[in-house]
C-alpha cells in the first residue's frame, strides 16, 4: 500500500544505507571530475590546433558544448526523478530532483555565458534573439521556476509534489532546444557545422569534448549527492526547519 511504501523508501534512503554509500562514492566522482576536466581543458586549449576560420575563439566550444549538453541532460534527469517520486510517492526521489536542479541551472547559465562570449567574436554581438539561444534561456527560467515553486510552498511534502509536476510539464522545452536549429534558420550552427574540419583535428576536438563532458558528468554526480545528503539531514532532523528559521529571523529583524 502506498503509505507503507513511502515509509520503507524513506528508511532505505535514510542514513543507514545512503550515507556510507554516498560517503564512499563522492570522493571518486570528484577526483574523476577534476582529472577529466583538467586533461580535457589541456587538450582543448594546447593540443588541439587553431581553427582556420575562427582562430582561437573557437576553443570555447570545449566548455560551451558540454555545458549545453549537460544543461539539457540534467533537466531530463531531474524530470525522471520527479516522475519516479510522483509515481512511487517516494520522498527521496523528490529530494534527488531538488538536488539536481541547481546544478542544471548552473550549467544552463554556463552555456549561456560561454555562448555569448563566443558570440561576440563570431557574430559580433553578445546576444541575438535566435531560437536556440532563447530556448536555452527559457530552460534557465524553467529551472528557476522549479526551484521557486518549491521555495514558495512551506509544507515540504506539498512543495515536492508541486514542483515535481511542474518539472515534468517543462520537459517539452528540451526537444524545442534541440530542434530549434531546424525550426528557425538560425545564426547558431546546427549539429553538423562543428565537425567539418580535417579528421585528425576532429579527433582531438572530439577527445577534448568527450573528456570535458565526462568531467561535467562526474562533477554533477558529486555535487548532487552532496546536496542530497544535506537535504536529508535537514528534513530528518527537523521537517519544519526551513520556515521556522525564516520566522525567527523575521521576528528578530522586526
Amino acid at each position, binding site marked *: *500500500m*502506498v*503509505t*507503507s511504501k513511502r*515509509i520503507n523508501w524513506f528508511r532505505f534512503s535514510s542514513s543507514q544505507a545512503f550515507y556510507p554509500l554516498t560517503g564512499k562514492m563522492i570522493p571518486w566522482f570528484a577526483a574523476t571530475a577534476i582529472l577529466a576536466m583538467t586533461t580535457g581543458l589541456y587538450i582543448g586549449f594546447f593540443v588541439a590546433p587553431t581553427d582556420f576560420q575562427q582562430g582561437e575563439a573557437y576553443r570555447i566550444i570545449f566548455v560551451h558544448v558540454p555545458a549545453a549538453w549537460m544543461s539539457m541532460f540534467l533537466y531530463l534527469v531531474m524530470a525522471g526523478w520527479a516522475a519516479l517520486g510522483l509515481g512511487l510517492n517516494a520522498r527521496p526521489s523528490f529530494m534527488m530532483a531538488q538536488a539536481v536542479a541547481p546544478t542544471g541551472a548552473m550549467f544552463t547559465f554556463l552555456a549561456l555565458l560561454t555562448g555569448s562570449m563566443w558570440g561576440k567574436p563570431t557574430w559580433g554581438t553578445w546576444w541575438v534573439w535566435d531560437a536556440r539561444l532563447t530556448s536555452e534561456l527559457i530552460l534557465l527560467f524553467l529551472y528557476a521556476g522549479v526551484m521557486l515553486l518549491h521555495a514558495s510552498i512551506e*509544507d515540504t511534502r506539498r512543495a515536492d509534489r508541486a514542483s515535481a509536476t511542474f518539472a515534468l510539464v517543462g520537459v517539452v522545452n528540451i526537444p524545442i532546444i534541440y530542434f530549434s536549429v531546424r525550426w528557425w534558420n538560425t545564426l547558431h550552427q546546427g549539429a553538423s557545422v562543428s565537425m567539418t574540419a580535417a579528421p585528425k583535428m576532429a579527433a582531438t576536438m572530439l577527445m577534448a569534448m568527450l573528456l570535458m563532458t565526462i568531467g561535467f558528468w562526474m562533477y554533477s554526480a558529486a555535487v548532487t549527492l552532496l546536496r542530497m545528503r544535506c537535504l536529508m539531514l535537514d528534513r530528518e532532523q*527537523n*521537517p*519544519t526547519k526551513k520556515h521556522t528559521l525564516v520566522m525567527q529571523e523575521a521576528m528578530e529583524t522586526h
Partner: protein
Amino acid sequence: MLELVELRCSRGKRLLFSDLSLIVGTGELLAVVGENGTGKTSLLRLVCGLSSPDSGTIVWRGSQIRQLKELYHAELTYIGHCNGIKDDLTPAENLKFSACLAGDGCSDTAIRRALEAVGLEARLHLLPTRILSQGQKRRVSLARLWLSRRPLWVLDEPYTSLDANAARLVTQRMEAHLDEGGLVVVATHQEMTLGTGSLQHVRLTG
C-alpha cells in the same frame, strides 16, 4: 457501513491521533468532539478522502475508499467549515449547481423546498448570496442536506453561527436521515442530543 482502521494522522511534527479505530453502522451518528486543534477537521477530511492518513485505512462497505475514488464520492455529502458557496450567485443558483454536480435531484421546486426547509424565506432566494447574513449563508450551504440522498454525511461544525431555531431544524434533518438508515459524522462543540438513531462519541485529545 464506515470503518476506520488504525488511522494515524500527523501535521508537521505534531501527532494528532494514532491507531484510531472505530465503526459507524447504519442509522448511527458519530459525534467527533474535542478541544480546538485536536484534529476533528483533519479526521473529517480523512474520512472524505480529501487528504490521506500517515497510515491506516478507511473502509466503506467492505472496500477501501482509496480504491473506490469517485464511486465513494457518490455516496458522500461533505459540508466543511467553509460554506462553499459563491457570493455572486443567488442561494437558489448556488444550491442548484452544487446539487446537480453532486448528482442529487436539482429541480427548481426541489431547490425552493430545500431553501424553505432550512428557513430562508422566498424573498432571499433570488438575491446575491453576498448580501446574506453569516447565519443565512450557513443555511444555504446546509440546505444541501435536504436534497442529498447520499448515505454518508460528513459535517464540520454545522451549527456555526446558526440561531437556535435553525440549529433545531438541522438536528431534525439529521435524525430523519438516521431513520432512513443513513450515517452521519459530525464535528461539533455543542452537546449533541438525538431523539432517535444511535449516538456514538469519539473525543480527540490531541
